[in-house]
């Protein structure tokens, strides 16, 4: 049985301008120890998917569908039940490490609190475990860090603390929402190395949300590409990069300049603008930006199964060979 089973997850928000459909019927499974990447641009619904899983949607948000964690339904769970799962079996780290920590509490108190709450440890035992965890995420001088406040630490150090906090109770699932986006490249590379290490050493499954295809390439086993709250494509990481089957995936891969390839004159930008969730085109949501769009795209394609367990939502049987590839 999969660790996490998400079925037909829908998230919408009531706003003064109308109902915003952020996530429109997402399905995926996550196995123990697996790292799944949720990829997409702003407005693709990747963060709202994650927040819905653990009941952290904003007040005007509603989630429907089913999210089963170890067979237990999370949607509709009471807050008191949820808070026993959150932080112990499922934990989450956020994009902005500094503002995700409590500025009024020392690092030590914040870590100890997790263990005394979820594991009923005594303070001394909790402190020892916390220091051990800080060591494991390679934070220098853990004992001294325990006495410090978040503002005394750099962004990279705070993110290590967040990761340590997320892993304190050895969760089955770690949700990481753009964990390195706010960090400098050299620090980003440290944190990614750490995440890869942790994923190898433990059986913790990771749901990694990011827009950075380089990070996906380094860390994920499988990838789900989202656009305007819909699943566009799902595949094993190597297959997705070597042979994208959806025009949006192809567009994303082609639009980034790459250090490992010769420079090209112009970048293959995806035309148009990111989707406006109040006004998503009917049919395929990507059709108004798609270079291959045709008549049939006015109907929403199924998220259909392809060979090798891949899935895609597109009417095209195969992507045409582009000039660059043929050239």
């Amino acid at each position, binding site marked *: 049985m999969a660790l996490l089973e998400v079925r037909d997850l829908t998230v919408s928000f009531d706003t003064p301008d109308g109902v915003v459909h952020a996530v429109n019927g997402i399905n995926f499974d996550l196995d123990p120890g697996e790292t799944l990447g949720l990829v997409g641009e702003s407005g693709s619904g990747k963060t709202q998917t994650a927040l819905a899983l653990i009941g952290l949607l904003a007040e005007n948000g509603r989630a429907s569908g089913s999210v089963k964690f170890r067979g237990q339904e999370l949607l509709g769970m009471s807050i008191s039940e949820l808070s026993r799962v959150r932080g112990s079996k499922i934990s989450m780290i956020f994009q902005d490490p500094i503002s995700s920590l409590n500025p009024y509490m020392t690092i030590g108190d914040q870590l100890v609190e997790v263990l005394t709450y979820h594991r009923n440890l005594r303070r001394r035992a909790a402190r020892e475990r916390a220091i051990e965890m800080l060591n494991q995420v390679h934070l220098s001088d853990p004992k001294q860090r325990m006495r410090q406040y978040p503002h005394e630490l750099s962004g990279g150090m705070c993110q290590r603390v967040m990761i340590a906090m997320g892993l304190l109770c050895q969760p089955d699932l770690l949700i990481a929402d753009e964990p390195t986006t706010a960090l400098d490249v050299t620090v980003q*590379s440290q944190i*990614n190395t750490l995440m890869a290490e942790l994923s190898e050493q433990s059986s913790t499954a990771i749901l990694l949300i990011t827009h950075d295809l380089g990070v996906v390439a380094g860390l994920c086993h499988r990838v789900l590409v989202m656009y305007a709250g819909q699943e566009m494509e799902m595949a094993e990481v190597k297959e997705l990069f070597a042979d994208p089957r959806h025009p949006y995936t192809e567009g994303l891969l082609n639009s980034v*300049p790459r250090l490992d390839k010769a420079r090209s004159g112009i970048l293959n930008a995806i035309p148009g603008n990111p989707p406006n969730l109040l006004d998503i085109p009917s049919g395929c949501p990507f059709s108004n930006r798609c270079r291959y769009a045709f008549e049939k795209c006015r109907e929403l394609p199924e998220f259909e199964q392809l060979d090798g367990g891949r899935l895609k939502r597109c009417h095209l049987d195969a992507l045409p060979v582009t000039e660059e590839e043929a050239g």
Partner: protein
Amino acid sequence: MSARRPVLEVRDLSVHFRVDTGGVFRHNYHTIKAVDRVSFDVNAAETLGIVGESGCGKSTLARAILGLVRPQDGRVAWLGENLLDLDEERMRGKRREIQMIFQDPSGSLDPRMTVGDIVAEPLKTFFPSMSRLQIRERVQGMLKLVGLLPEQINRYPHEFSGGQCQRIGIARALVVNPRLVVCDEPVSALDVSIQAQIVNLLKDLQKKLQLSLIFIAHDLSVVRHVSDRVLVMYLGQVVEVADRDSIYLNPRHPYTRALIESVPIPDPVKERERARRSLKGDMPSPMNPPSGCVFRTRCPYAIDACADQRPGLETLDSGRLVACIRHRELADGLEAPDPEFA
């Protein structure tokens, strides 16, 4: 590039900030050397990329060039004339020739002005004699040039997406026919698909209008794509300057090398096989920089001598500049001595 005289010459430019670090009975002041004796040139119709991580002083450098912060020391010569000697009145005239594009596309547009007014404002400032009709025509032409519709002239910034707002920012910068445009992280707030549109637009306009660009960014792949030459900064100082291909194929400074190795490659096979020498730690506090070479506390190749004095920018063959006392050994294939980096 060309043997002609550079349009912009920056020499030994330093910008210091005095910060109050508290104290009970009297204030304690610290000096932050945000930009510390930086020198470089920009040639006509050339793009100079400036890269570095947050806090390295790249934005302060941009602001100092435009006269938006007062440098402590140094020279910013525009076509041979030192801008730092000019009074406010004459500096304003020069600002027509040097324009800026900002990072936050919608935050840098006044939400209560229409797009037409936003783009027209610099024209009214610099060309007070232009008639309303001339201004309108010029603004509409500009909107078209940056890929917006001339009919959108009466709309407000909130009606546009981030990428479109950046196009408006570009139109505003270019409407007065500048010769140099300083772009401070112009695409980092945008989604990747939109980033590519804006990068293409900037490159295209540069060619059409023969602009010089200073392109400041932290994304090394984007900088490689747009720049002719690249300057790398660390903690307020220039550590390396070279033409684009040499800096990416053959970085000579250990920091440049580490930066390039840190960029994740969107290819799962290559990315997982890459040998990486991750840098340890974080950038030191600019309030209390290390003695000697500022990079030595994180440098895998640092030796005792690196603490003694600040390495000068040495000119190598083909005009590239490097500030490292061990760059020759590095070029000869020196391995990292510290096992932590292996």
